[in-house]
């Protein structure tokens, strides 16, 4: 699934470890999600939404044809 986590994280000068601490998951988890290897559950997507202060769709934009 496409996401803007890397960009949003860079805007805030957060490392993957910083973001992982805020979300409450491991750095590996953030890395897997950021690189599109793992799709987070809805509760975790909402955690990203809370942490970035954006809507879920702004972080995980809908892809064309899906």
């Amino acid at each position: 699934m496409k996401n803007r986590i890397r960009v949003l994280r860079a805007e805030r000068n957060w490392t993957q470890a910083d973001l992982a601490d805020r979300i409450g998951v491991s750095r590996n988890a953030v890395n897997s999600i950021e690189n599109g290897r793992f799709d987070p559950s809805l509760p975790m997507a909402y955690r990203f939404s809370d942490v970035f202060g954006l809507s879920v769709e702004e972080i995980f934009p809908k892809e064309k044809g899906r």
Partner: protein
Amino acid sequence: MPKSGQMRPKVKPGVWAGMLVAASVLTAALMATLFRMKIIGMEGQGYFFLLAFVFAMLAMVPYWRSLDEPSREAHKFAVFWGLGWAFAFVMLIGIELMHFGGLRDLVQGWVEGWIAFSKGISGEQQGAVGFYLGIVASTFLMGLAYILVWLGWWAHQRMGAKAD
């Protein structure tokens, strides 16, 4: 939905505790029944393994609760594709052993060799030893498959992944 900290599993702690107590009681009841029916002996080692089993089960709970989503996904994937396929393979070997003489003779030779190597096993225990060795070999194969698939899952996650 959780508001902070680690992502929580859907099962509440009270339910977990109830399930654990129920599992322990049921296991104990099953073991006691088997013991009363003289299907198993409960001398020393039996109690030790029962306790070890219960504590292993208990120890799994905090471990599982500490895992985040991808880590749990890795375990689920390994159970389905590693343990599941290895179990099917072990079943296939079991069927082969029952129906085809060549493989049966080969395995029987290994078991007899092991029995000859470990002195002090009486004739009446040899069948049980063969059964036990079968369980150990099956568990080893399934455990190995589980670990390999689990490592493969993580390797796939890391392929081409960019860190900070």
